[in-house]
């Protein structure tokens, strides 16, 4: 399948008089692995929120997995996220009191899946990120890299059409970061579409495709790698 998973047309976003995104056009096709790279304040987080349907653009149109978002209600957007979009955050956002498998199973809570099935699929997802030996560990007992892999498992447990990762290695040391990136690559190799938002040019350069954001504009020019691929 090679249709567009994310299709942004002339997307603009303003907060009051401040324009954060300027007429962005971007298409992400199924099976792609893409980096959106830019310094802080460049508008990449706003991009992520709009692509993830957590926020609505001021103008322009967006479709996710073939569904036009423009006419979806709040409930419709929630359903779209539940079925098609997986999120990975810089700071993991795991429930400290719940085990790894419970945290991952929460990813299916809003998709109408039975509890036993949620746990079974959560254990499978943890195995895919290489944490089958950490099912009953709680986040405080896990390393930073392991926590991020639990968060990735939570995002992919629903088999989303696209995985949106916001600075997934930003809170990790370089070894753990490399490990998390390897997991994302493997998932992509298995067919998951991955979009990584980062300020890290090295990370972006290591991915098959990258686009650059600056002051709310998407740079058409390809990015020049400035360091070694990780």
């Amino acid at each position: 399948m090679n249709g567009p998973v994310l299709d942004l047309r002339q997307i603009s976003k303003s907060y009051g008089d401040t324009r954060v995104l300027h007429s962005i056009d971007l298409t992400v096709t199924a099976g792609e692995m893409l980096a959106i790279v830019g310094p802080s304040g460049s508008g990449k987080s706003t991009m992520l929120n709009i692509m993830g349907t957590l926020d609505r653009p001021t103008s322009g149109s967006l479709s996710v997995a073939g569904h036009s978002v423009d006419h979806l209600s709040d409930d419709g957007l929630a359903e779209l996220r539940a079925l098609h979009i997986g999120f990975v955050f810089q700071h993991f956002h795991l429930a400290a009191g719940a085990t790894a498998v419970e945290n991952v199973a929460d990813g299916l809570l809003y998709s109408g899946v039975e509890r036993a099935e949620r746990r079974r699929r959560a254990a499978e997802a943890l195995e895919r990120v290489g944490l089958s030996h950490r099912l009953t560990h709680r986040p405080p007992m896990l390393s930073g890299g392991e926590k991020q892999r639990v968060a990735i498992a939570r995002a992919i447990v629903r088999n989303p059409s696209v995985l949106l990762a916001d600075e997934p290695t930003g809170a990790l040391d370089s070894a753990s970061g490399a490990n998390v990136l390897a997991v994302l690559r493997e998932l992509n190799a298995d067919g998951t579409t991955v979009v990584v938002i980062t300020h890290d040019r090295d990370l972006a350069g290591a991915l098959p495709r990258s686009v650059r954001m600056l002051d709310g504009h998407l740079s058409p020019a390809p990015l020049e790698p400035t360091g070694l691929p990780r």
Partner: protein
Amino acid sequence: MTAAKVNRIATGPRTGVRFGDLLRLGLFGLRTRPTRVLLSALGIAIGIAAMVAVVGLGSSSRAQLTGVLDRLGTNVLAVSPGKSLTGDTIPLPATAVGQVGRVPGVLESAGTGLVVGAHVYRTDKIPTLQTKGLDVRAAFGDLPGVLRARFVSGGWLREPGPSEAATAGSFGSPSEVVLGHGAATALGIDRVTGAERVWIGGSWWSVVGILEPLTLAPDLDSSAFVPVAAATSRLGFDGAPTQISARADPERLDGVRTLLPRAANPAVEAGATVSRPSDALEAQRASEASFTGLLLGLGLVALLVGGIGVANTMVITVLERRAEIGVRRALGARRRNIRDQFLIESLLLALLGGACGVVLGAVVTVIFAVAQGWPPTVPVWAVAGGLGSTVVIGGLSGIYPASRAASVPPTSALAAA
């Protein structure tokens, strides 16, 4: 946007979040903040415990009074000497007890006459001025029988033989005495073995019985009762009864009541007054009910304060958990899923406090009632009402925080992390 919004992208039923999952989320939310949960549940628990205990103690006390009234009956009338226009007491004739007993509708009657100047002492060594406020009364008829009184020990004055009755005109052997409960306590006598003696009017009397408190005639508790004949011959009793108790046919109580003054003292208009001692107990039972109402109101205020505590806790919880709300929205939670989660958490918090409060209130009721000698009674409606009001309180205190949680935009919830 002018076009109607679309709520669904998929076809087929959307199951949403199951109630069991919401319950689990709520419990998990409480479990992660045990101290705060316990403190705010305590507020509810105190309110509910106060309400349950107030209702329980009121019911226990009323059950006790009802039991007493059932045992004693409400058909006893008390006759006492009337007052003249100048305020002087008009003495009843010596035959008054018998005359009262002959009134149609009176089932049984008895009376006592105060022996003026006579007092009861533990021994002959006690100075005569140390009366301890105890008096001596001549007993006409079976007083404990009419008042349904029980004995701590021993029994009533012995029925006289025919020869004694002919000479004495009443019953009771000359040297016998029965002590009221207060009198026995004051004299330090707690049982009758046959050897106990008391000193009355310059001679020894042997104690044959000790009464339990007389609920229908509490003013007789500090008296020593002696036979009329002995009181007359040895203590100078004038023969006039000062108090008569009559048990009437309950169906004819009102009629008997109007006849009694005339029967007790036929010679003088308004020469006797009649009252119904059980009225005081009925009044006490009624006043307990109104007092319960007042205390219940105070309990309700405590509950309200507890509810505000829960609301406060939930508002803080929502502020603290903005990141969790954001993540859940990102995972596909709808606004109503978030609202339900926090509402259920608030309900569980209040219910936890309510359940603890009901148990606490019941325990307090049982302990206090048993200590008072009341039958412990915790009405089912009080328990149900207590739990029901916590559900209402939990729901009301949860509505605002929960709808606030639901209205947090997912982006700002995540940005707060």
